[in-house]
């Protein structure tokens, strides 16, 4: 699976911060059209990994290919073809939703119109609202709209629904499903099991900077064997506990 069919490929990525090894020989591949999840607790190295793949961080070692290309030498082309939502970005509070989208759209050589984007993320009624006055869910949808402005082939999402209420999460999931249905590839990080089960074709469970398990959610749950309690459907949470002896939210 190389070249044209590869969405994301990384092998033996290493990233150290001083003595701390944030990413430790991490490898995986994402096919075109696939939704792939990096799953793990806070501090597992998910954000560092995704920022290396987004070309924002330089790894200490390892190879990265995005859409069959390396970052070195293809920065301009790749940036036109990917969409990025970062975990902590706060867009300018005093610009309106429409102005923010116009700004991001101006960077891309092709893509959707502002009206299409607003419709897509259901923010038409907020078109003239300042970003600072949006709810958390609306802000996150705007962030995704900015990522979708250039009609990307590949979307990177770093904890897209952290801190959102259930309805906002479902709204966002719906939006991502629509992107997938048009052939888009998604790489996302999350520490929500249900999110990974709902959205992802395959997940890699990451702990201490390494992939400790990889497969479809169903495969991973199947490794648990028969559910021990009849009413309890196995979840990825159980997989994580079985693999590490810890719960995902434990620090």
């Amino acid at each position, binding site marked *: 699976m190389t070249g044209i069919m590869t969405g994301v490929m990384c092998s033996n990525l290493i990233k150290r911060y001083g003595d701390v090894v944030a990413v430790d020989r991490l490898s995986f591949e994402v096919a075109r059209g696939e939704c792939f999840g990096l799953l793990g607790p806070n501090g597992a190295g998910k954000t560092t990994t995704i920022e290396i793949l987004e070309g924002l961080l330089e790894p200490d070692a390892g190879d990265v290919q995005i859409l069959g290309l390396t970052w070195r030498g293809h920065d301009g082309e790749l*940036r036109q073809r990917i969409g990025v939502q970062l975990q902590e970005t706060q867009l*300018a509070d*005093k*610009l309106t939703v429409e102005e923010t989208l116009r*700004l991001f759209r101006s960077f*891309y050589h092709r893509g959707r119109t502002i009206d299409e984007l607003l419709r897509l993320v259901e923010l038409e009624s907020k078109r003239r609202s300042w970003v600072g006055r949006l709810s958390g869910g609306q802000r996150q949808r705007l962030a995704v709209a900015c990522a979708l402005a250039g009609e990307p082939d590949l979307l990177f999402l770093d904890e897209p629904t952290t801190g959102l209420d259930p309805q906002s999460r479902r709204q966002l999931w719906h939006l991502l499903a629509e992107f997938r249905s048009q052939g888009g590839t998604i790489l996302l990080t999350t520490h929500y099991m249900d999110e990974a089960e709902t959205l992802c074709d395959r997940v890699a469970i990451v702990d201490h900077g390494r992939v400790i398990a990889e497969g479809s959610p169903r495969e991973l749950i199947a490794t648990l064997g028969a559910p021990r309690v009849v009413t309890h459907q196995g979840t990825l949470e159980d997989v994580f506990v079985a693999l590490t002896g810890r719960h995902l939210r434990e620090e």
Partner: protein
Amino acid sequence: MTTPIDRGGSWHPLVELALARLREFAREPEAIFWAFIFPILMSVALAIAFPGGGSKPAIVGIEPGDDANGIHEALEHAPGVTVRDLAPGTEARALREGEVHLLVVPTSPPTYRFDPAREESRVARLLVDDALKHAAGRPDPWSAREDPVQVPGSRYVDWLIPGIVGLNIMGTSMWGIGFSIVQARMRKLLKRLVASPMHKREYLLAQVGGRLILLAPEAGVPLLFGVFVLGLPIRGSLMTTSIVCLVGALAFGGVGLLLASRARTFEAISGLMNMTMVPMWVLSGVFFSSSNFPQAVQPLIQALPLTALIDALRAVVLDGVGLAAVSRELAVLAGWGLGGFALALRIFRWT
């Protein structure tokens, strides 16, 4: 030639970035205050400090004594002299603090107590001496006819206004650019922008370019106030004046970018800004001529962007020279602007 670029109705990124910068500025009430109201307040303060026409009277205090009343009477109607009544015991302090320019001690003949190093005190001595001798019966051999002339452009305030304009251009350019960049960095907005296909160079250019539109009011308000309220003559062409202001703003835009290129907190950028600007407030001749500093440091002072801007502004506004005559100053400013921009682009911290 590749496929034509479709921006989906957006302007060129440079324009959108500059517009975003301007919109954020216009929606920040504090920023408006510093850019527009502050120079007006400063100019009003100047107008009060340097009222047009007339000269300030000599203010004189009289120590208590037998003949104090006679002296008081003689000085009360003397031209150019104002007698200030002082509470007994406070005379020495009033003189020290400049509340009165001269104290008359009613001895016979009277004693003048004053600081000869102070110009207004020496003037007060002449006026008081003349008035008292006249009151004592000294005849005037003749009295001269006076022909008071006010030469616009030669007053201190005329000299000061270009300095204030330069100061304002420096302050607003540097603070405006510095704070907005550091804020965008703190909010990880810069990181988000470089994750998109935005060109870094265009972002930095837009930060400087967005400010240039604000230059017209920032430099114009104090200049117009000077012209219409204080009677400042603008002898150079308006075009030349504008070009000097523009090049000055570009210079400080470059310096502002450079200072903001690494700073991660408001504390850091404030420190850098003050460290850069305060020495220029002192050295660059805003309030008093920079020629007062020793010859040895003059090359350094002449190389400062604020010195170059203020010298060029004074030459154009007060002496009416053309661009050619201020080419050295413009070159210094362009050097700061281009150098600052190029270096900032290299060392800028985006993530």
